[in-house]
């Protein structure tokens, strides 16, 4: 009877003890984690009033004020303002910078507020790049006035009429201040829709302990991977081709002679169903399943399986972007090497990664409800964040590759002079910048949005052994066409894919 009575209680003593123990363990684990990785102090909204700029002498203050005033006047003239308005102007800003980049951002926004005291930015930190969050806010007419996005998703937002055509607001001389590849990334139908603050692409990171000299060709890549595998019993390469959405794979596709879009009779069409795609897929399949030198990692980046294997000396080569550089530098130190992706031996072409860009866009009044004055303030913000001083500061703080021409030149000069610290960072950055010569423009036409899932669906089936490379190439092109059809793109017999005209209202 005692057992029955006990079981009818809500929670028995033992259960209560067990629950308390679990909670204690969870709390202790939480404390340990928090102690090991102190959380960055990034407020959800801020106007950076806590950052103070002190000047030690009157002379410095005067110079600083003069420079600030002069910069303010120059930028204001670019947006058609002769003097500051009498009342403060509030702007909403969505910031997609990473933790290390936010060190730069917090410093720069304080300078911005000093330069334009009449503009009051309200910043939301930690927003991801991409269209979905912005679209959701825009639907309610509450998109941020200024948003930092990637050039490809910015292209879709521009085609949707959600962000401004900056060519109508700024003189063309402004755009010549940026690297041509960066400004091309932000141009659609001869209209510039964003101001770039960096260029980005993937490179080959290698561990010098296992790979003293990086491979120049895919033949050398295979040889090195096999040698590393047999000598050190670690993976030669970690490349999760089996879970790809086609961002990194586009480099190999190009190396095998392919391109995502082609033009036939003046019409842009998808071109995935090619021998280049078949060969590129088979190349990685062979490395993975027959030679067994590539680890088909389930996740990418410094925090994913690829990065974790690389930092723990369990793989010799990975393909990743400079955005993860700090993690690799910390783990490998002078053993870290960076070089361009190799030449594909069978074609003689460089594996050419997408050269993309992130930058600042300004929402249309319909999307954000902004007034003309707020738009001008937003433009000033974008100009300020991407000018020489800011972009060079972003490079120095987080090693983002500058999109501003002058900042880029200064960065190159720094590397050539070997001025980066620690000193072993100089050859790494040199290798990263070298890759820019062999990249391809990141397509920013709105049709590009339908490439990713089409590629992913069939590439994953191929690497799971469900279909052949030929079927995968056919399938991904068919899915690409279907996705475009479903999105209502013009599908005439010739399958016209000319970029649609943006329906922005400015």
């Amino acid at each position, binding site marked *: 009877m005692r057992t029955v009575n006990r079981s009818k209680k809500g929670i028995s003593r033992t*259960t209560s003890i067990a629950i308390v123990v*679990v909670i204690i363990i969870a709390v202790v684990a939480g404390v340990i984690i928090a102690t090991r990785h102190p959380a960055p102090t990034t407020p959800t909204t801020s106007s950076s009033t806590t950052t103070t700029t002190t000047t030690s002498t009157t002379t410095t203050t005067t110079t600083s004020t003069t420079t600030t005033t002069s910069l303010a006047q120059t930028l204001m003239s670019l947006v058609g303002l002769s003097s500051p308005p009498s009342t403060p102007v509030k702007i909403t800003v969505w910031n997609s910078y990473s933790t290390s980049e936010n060190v730069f951002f917090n410093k720069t926004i304080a300078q911005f507020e000093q330069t334009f005291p009449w503009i009051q930015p309200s910043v939301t930190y930690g927003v991801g790049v991409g*269209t979905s969050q912005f679209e959701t806010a825009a*639907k309610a007419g509450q998109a941020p006035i200024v948003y930092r996005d990637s050039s490809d998703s910015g292209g*879709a937002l521009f*085609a949707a009429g959600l962000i401004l055509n900056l060519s109508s607001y700024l003189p063309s001389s402004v755009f010549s201040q940026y690297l041509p590849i960066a400004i091309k990334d932000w141009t659609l139908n001869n209209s510039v829709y964003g101001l770039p603050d960096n260029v980005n692409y993937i490179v080959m990171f290698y561990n010098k302990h296992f790979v003293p000299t990086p491979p120049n060709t895919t033949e050398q890549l295979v040889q090195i991977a096999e040698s590393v595998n047999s000598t050190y019993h670690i993976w030669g390469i970690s490349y999760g081709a089996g879970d790809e959405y086609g961002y990194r794979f586009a480099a190999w596709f190009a190396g095998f002679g392919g391109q995502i879009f082609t033009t036939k009779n003046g019409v842009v069409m998808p071109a995935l169903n090619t021998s280049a795609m078949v060969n590129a897929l088979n190349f990685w399949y062979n490395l993975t399943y027959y030679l067994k030198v590539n680890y088909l990692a*389930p996740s990418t980046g410094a925090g994913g399986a690829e990065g974790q294997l690389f930092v723990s000396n369990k793989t010799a080569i990975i393909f990743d972007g400079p955005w993860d550089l700090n993690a690799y530098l910390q783990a490998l130190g002078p053993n870290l090497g960076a070089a361009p992706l190799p030449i594909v031996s069978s074609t003689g072409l460089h594996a050419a990664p997408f050269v993309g860009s992130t930058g600042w866009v300004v929402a249309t009044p319909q999307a954000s409800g902004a007034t003309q004055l707020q738009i001008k303030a937003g433009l000033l913000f974008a100009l300020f964040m991407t000018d020489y001083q800011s972009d060079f500061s972003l490079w120095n703080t987080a090693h983002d590759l500058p999109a501003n021409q002058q900042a880029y030149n200064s960065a190159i000069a720094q590397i050539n002079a070997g001025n980066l610290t620690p000193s072993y960072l100089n050859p790494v950055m040199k290798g990263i910048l070298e890759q820019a010569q062999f990249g391809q423009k990141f397509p920013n036409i709105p049709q590009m949005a339908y490439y990713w899932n089409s590629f*992913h669906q069939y590439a994953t089936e191929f690497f799971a052994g469900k279909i052949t490379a030929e079927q995968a190439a056919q399938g991904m092109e068919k899915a690409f066409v279907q996705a475009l*059809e479903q999105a209502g793109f013009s599908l005439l017999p010739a399958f016209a894919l000319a970029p649609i005209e943006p329906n922005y209202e400015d």
Partner: protein
Amino acid sequence: MKTNPSLSNLFYILPIVAVILFLFLYPLAYALYISFTNMNTFHFFHYSFVGLRNYVSLFKYGYFWTLLGNTALWTVGSLLPMMALGLALSLILNQRDLKGKSVFYAILILPWAFPGFISLLVWQGLWVDPYGMMNRLVLPLLHLPPINSLTSVRGAWIELITTNVWLSFPYFMTVFYSSLQSIPNELYELADTDGAGAFTKFIRITLPSLKGTIAFVFITSFVFTWNNFYPIYLLTGGGPGISTETFTVYAYQQAFSYSNYAFSLRCPSCQPLSWL
């Protein structure tokens, strides 16, 4: 003037009617309406009615049947082992002579003590082939081959269903256990007097007494599992290809990868149809 009391009583339910209208019926009707339009990134503010075009394309491209098959496999494949395991464990816990019952119960409901999302991230790591604990330790111990959701569709399903069973069995166990405790002991004592064996008692007493509970649990869990999104999204993302993609995952990807909002909403609208 005298008011009709039955009419005035209706005013009292107005708040709940308003809540239902705005929080349930309006979004439902709006979603249904959008599914008949061409609303997407490129027809964002100015979209138009396209009739059944979105629904036709779902069938035309063959996605409907694949998604229906996957969703049914996911639901039934998860539900049967979850219920069987939940019932088996509740029967064990219900043994009168079982010592340390509370300890066992506390251990068995542990999967409930952690947020599902966090558990899934942990499981994601456990399944990594060959480094995760499942592939490095547990499966070799059981003399089973490794499971890799990237390289095998079968592996992806095993990974999904095993994880889902682990996440969900405490619910079934708890419901069945509480229901078992409500069965009068006298019934078993009488059966003992009649010389009935354990199996007969289970078939003649336990199962009929649990009939109502089983029906309730099955129906509610069927709907929940059918629409359950995050295990699939986090573990396999619907892959390889669309081999493990369900209606809900597909709808999410259409909305937030493609920004095809109209397309996305036809899937939830199709679901009652698929149940029929």
